[in-house]
């Protein structure tokens, strides 16, 4: 009997593991005449760190709101761990943690009291909760600030408290909404390392940020969206491969003539070239011999070449190419 049970349990567990942590299909959300989500699709695998990128007003927040059942939608389906997500899906909610962009703590409570309270919403028994709270305090490095109220904490410590409040109950799925806004590099690094640690412990993470390097650093897959639509999905390298932009070459030269600059611009792989009297900056299309060809033009014109750098395309280039350079609200 026991062996039969085990045999049956394995396929169930395997099936559960293959169920997406979040599955959004053909989601439509309208605010009056404005379409915030336009048949939006999303699949987040269990155990990954998923980056959700998009300019302001692109629909990221609306999508997250719909996933969390904070917002009703016009069409489509949202499933979390295979189950439909509704405002009263308390069993599912128990598995979800959220770290909002704005610090969401009680100013009147101490660090420990805040973490304990938010954990208590998920874990009612104090005896079960106490070790979780302690673990969250250590995870966020707040051991020396247990009795502090939020007003006495620095910006970085506040962000860490905000995270501790969202993860103390050990959720399986965590939403991080721009958790590193306005923190110093040390705190940012600590936060990113913490998120990776949580992920290694088994949590699925959905991460939104405007800092491309952060997303590139920690996310397994990234979705770029705009105007409520899915624009591109893949790993950072896959996304970079999708765009036309190749390397960005910067050359220090003091005697570049207008004719030479025109010759550079005339090269087939050059998207954009600019010269400020000291540095020539060239944005190239994809190509294997871009650098060699560019140096060839400069040598032919007799320009002296100083320091030279070639930077491969970044996620920022991908983002700008896909969403455009026009300013957003």
């Amino acid at each position, binding site marked *: 009997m026991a062996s039969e049970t085990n045999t049956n349990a394995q396929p169930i567990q395997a099936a559960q593991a293959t169920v997406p942590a979040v599955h959004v299909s053909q989601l439509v959300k309208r*605010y009056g005449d404005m379409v915030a989500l336009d048949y939006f699709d999303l699949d987040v695998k269990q155990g990954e760190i998923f980056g959700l990128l998009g300019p302001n007003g692109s629909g990221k*927040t*609306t999508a*997250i*709101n719909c996933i*969390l059942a*904070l*917002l*009703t939608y016009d069409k489509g389906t949202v499933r979390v761990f295979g189950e439909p997500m509704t405002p*009263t899906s*308390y*069993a599912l*909610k*128990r598995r*979800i943690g*959220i770290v*909002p*962009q*704005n*610090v*969401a*703590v*009680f100013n*009147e*409570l101490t660090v420990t*009291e805040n973490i*304990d*309270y*938010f954990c*208590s*919403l*998920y874990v*009612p028994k104090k005896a079960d909760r106490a070790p979780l709270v302690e673990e969250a305090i250590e995870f966020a490095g707040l051991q020396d600030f247990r009795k502090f109220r939020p007003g006495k904490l620095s910006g970085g410590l506040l962000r860490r408290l905000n995270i501790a*409040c*969202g993860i103390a109950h050990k959720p399986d799925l965590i939403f991080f*909404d721009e958790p590193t806004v306005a923190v110093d590099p040390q705190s940012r690094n600590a936060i990113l390392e913490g998120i990776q640690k949580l992920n290694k412990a088994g949590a699925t993470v959905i991460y939104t940020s405007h800092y491309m390097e952060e997303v590139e650093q920690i996310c397994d897959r990234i979705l770029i969206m705009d105007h409520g639509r899915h624009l591109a999905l893949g790993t950072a390298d896959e996304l970079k491969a999708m765009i036309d932009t190749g390397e960005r070459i910067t050359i220090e030269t003091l005697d570049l003539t207008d004719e030479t600059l025109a010759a550079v611009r005339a090269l087939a792989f050059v998207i954009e070239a600019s010269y400020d009297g000291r540095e020539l900056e060239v944005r190239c299309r994809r190509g294997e011999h871009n650098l060699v060809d560019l140096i060839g033009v400069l040598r032919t014109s007799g320009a002296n070449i100083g320091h030279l750098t070639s930077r491969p395309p970044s996620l920022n280039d991908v983002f700008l190419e896909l969403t455009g350079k026009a300013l957003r609200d």
Partner: protein
Amino acid sequence: MWSTFIVTLKANLRDKSSLFWLIVFPIALATMFNGVFGNLDQAMSITPVSVAVVEDTNWTNAIGADTLITALSGKSSDTSKTHDDNGTNAVNIDPGVTLLNATKVDSTLQARELVSQGKTDGYLKADDDGRIELTLSDDTVTVANNGTQEAGLDVSLSALDNVLDQYNRTSATVKSVLEDNPTAPITRTFWNGINASMNATKEVTLTNFKPSVMARYYYALMGMACLVAMSYMIHTVTTAQANLSALGIRRTVAPLGRAKQLVAGFLAGWLCSCVCLLVALAYIRYGCGIEVGGREPAAVIAVVVASFMTCAFGTMIGAIPKLTTGVKQGMATAIACSLSLFSGLYGGFAMELSDLISRKAPLLAAINPAQQVTDLFYSLMYYDSYQPFIRTCAILLAMSTVFLAAGVIMLRRQRYEHL
């Protein structure tokens, strides 16, 4: 739910701003009332005047002078006792208000000495005709004319002067009649005439408790403090709404239903409001000496009912969509201040306005929560029956039901648009 209750309780009790408005502010205002208006009651009350009584020959000859002074000193004398049919002492006449603190001396010189030493305000002596004269020191006259210094002295002196004048006139009349008709005292007509010439006003309390001019101001203050307590529920509702605060997002996503969180917050807010208002009430009752008709337990019930109403009101204001927390808190303050005007908090004019509304537009008074809270305490103070108190409680509970229903409807309809 229990942890939400405890946390909201802690948050409320540590919120210095709320504590200021709910405890410090009413206490400060009550203290101010006490300082500014506290002498009003005293000014209308009678305080004993300290006098020396010159017991010389003239005084001894003045018939009834001793009895008069004894009575004015608030003491019973043998002659102030009535006799029943059996001739036994049965009933003591109530000496009433004490008008004098008499110090007996043998001569005018001694009396003047006491006055000059400031030990007495003046002295009483009888002239050759048996007329009693009151002489006051210059200081006493100055103080009496300046009513702000020693409240009630002018009233006491006026009363004393009146009594002495009445004694002198009656005494002169009796003497004159006796000279003309020595047998007159044996007739009932004579004594009826004497009694008819004396008039007096006896204070009779028809209400449950002796009315106090100032009490209504303090009750109106309780009404305002009560409405200020709305801020607790506004904060509670705001921090549970995802469209108004990041805290609301975090709490809405949690697996504890919003209704349970709001109920826990409501109970905590109610408890905090009660505690704050009880502190204010205790200060008003025992610190400022403002009575609640000797019905302190009912006053506690009044606080419980009033704070329930204010929490319901706060829930409704907090649930109004598309308004920021700051705007809602501002609304609460504006509502508390403006409704308090119509409940009579801001002085005589406001009190008259409040009375006018109660007389001419009772419905408006009935829907003014500040007025109803004021009336709760007022009804305890003035009415013999608990009926008016119970009726006011019922009005407040009905209001609470309406506020809660409106709040719940608004909360159920809300959809969030921003994380």
